[in-house]
């Protein structure tokens, strides 16, 4: 049995991976080998087209073959872009979910190992663009803070999950040590909840 039966099988495999990523809510490792294979297929298809055109200047009887090659090229390309776009959306979601704390995200070896170098570049530039956007509002509020839970209480009881050092709060500076509990202003420490240092005690 051949490695792949027909054109675009590999591309289908690639977008199926995106689908699985969505349904399992997981970021998979960037599939560099598969992407390269599809790009090779694209070059092969292009070569077929060239030889067809060169071989029969009048296109007599060959047009259907050309149409199939062309359709395969477009489909492969669409799948490649869809796969990359899907990953970018996923990475942006992860970025916003930690309140834009990019160093925090990139310092995780698990996440880092799943990204292509170009994706890391993307995130870095994206981060600086978002930071610039954010600075327009910084006199009044932080647009990166949470928007899923409307504020109810001004203060919140938190438990420290990981040491996060001394933080300035409205109630003075607090040294958050693992295992301790504090009643603090929500706005002061919300980013630490988002990044997993503190946990809200309900």
């Amino acid at each position, binding site marked *: 049995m051949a490695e792949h039966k027909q054109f675009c099988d590999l591309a289908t495999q690639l977008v199926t991976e995106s689908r699985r990523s969505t349904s399992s809510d997981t970021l998979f490792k960037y599939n560099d080998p598969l992407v390269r294979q599809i790009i090779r297929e694209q070059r092969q298809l292009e070569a077929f087209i060239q030889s067809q055109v060169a071989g029969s200047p009048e296109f007599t009887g060959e047009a259907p073959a050309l149409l199939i090659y062309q359709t395969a090229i477009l489909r492969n390309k669409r799948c490649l872009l869809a796969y990359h776009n899907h990953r970018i*959306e996923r990475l*942006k*979601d992860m970025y*916003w*979910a930690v309140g834009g704390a990019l160093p925090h995200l990139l310092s995780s070896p698990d996440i880092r190992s799943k990204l292509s170098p170009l994706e890391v570049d993307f995130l870095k530039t994206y981060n600086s663009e978002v930071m610039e956007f954010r600075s327009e509002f910084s006199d009044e509020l932080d647009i990166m803070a949470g*928007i*899923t*839970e*409307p504020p109810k209480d001004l203060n919140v009881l938190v438990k420290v999950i990981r040491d996060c050092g001394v933080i300035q709060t409205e109630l003075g500076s607090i040294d958050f040590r693992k295992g301790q509990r504090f009643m603090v202003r929500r706005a002061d420490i919300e980013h630490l909840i988002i990044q997993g240092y503190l946990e809200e005690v309900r």
Partner: protein
Amino acid sequence: MALPQSLRTSVTPPELELIASEQLIDIVPLVTMEKTAFISGAYGPLRPPAKARVPLWIAVNLKLKRKCHIVPPEWLSVESLQDKLTRETSNPGFSELPFRFAEISKVILDIASDDLENPDKIRTLLKDIREARQSKSREGISKLDHSELGLSGLCSMEINEIRPFFIKGMSVLTKLIRDPEHPPKLDET
């Protein structure tokens, strides 16, 4: 995306509660406060035992600290809700309720049930009304087409509950009718 997944297709009940909490409600304050300008407007002064009208979020904050009693809106009583329920079950249309009645009654029942007369009966009535109305809005599905569906009388929380399904349904019907070569044009008014 800058908007979390959970917020993309609809609005969340806590968000609707936040919006409803801007509505004004009467309280009997147990604390004194001068007239104060908030961002949403100026409220007060509070002079116990005189009634005062404040946004629901202020009432909630005061109530949680035992600094006021909430005067429930007229419609949030056994008598009024009983009347609504009767109309709801005997008429085909939706009976008239405040647009954000579900959010407001939830907030008040959650934190100030001691300010209500017979809160358990009120809960039961609200549940019955809700169910009677739900079955009516489900009937709306059978009338769904690609064009328009009238839903007057529906309340904010009810719209939010049916939103994903109704939007999906109408979108599918729209796609079935859509002609890719000639997207239908709407006549100018």
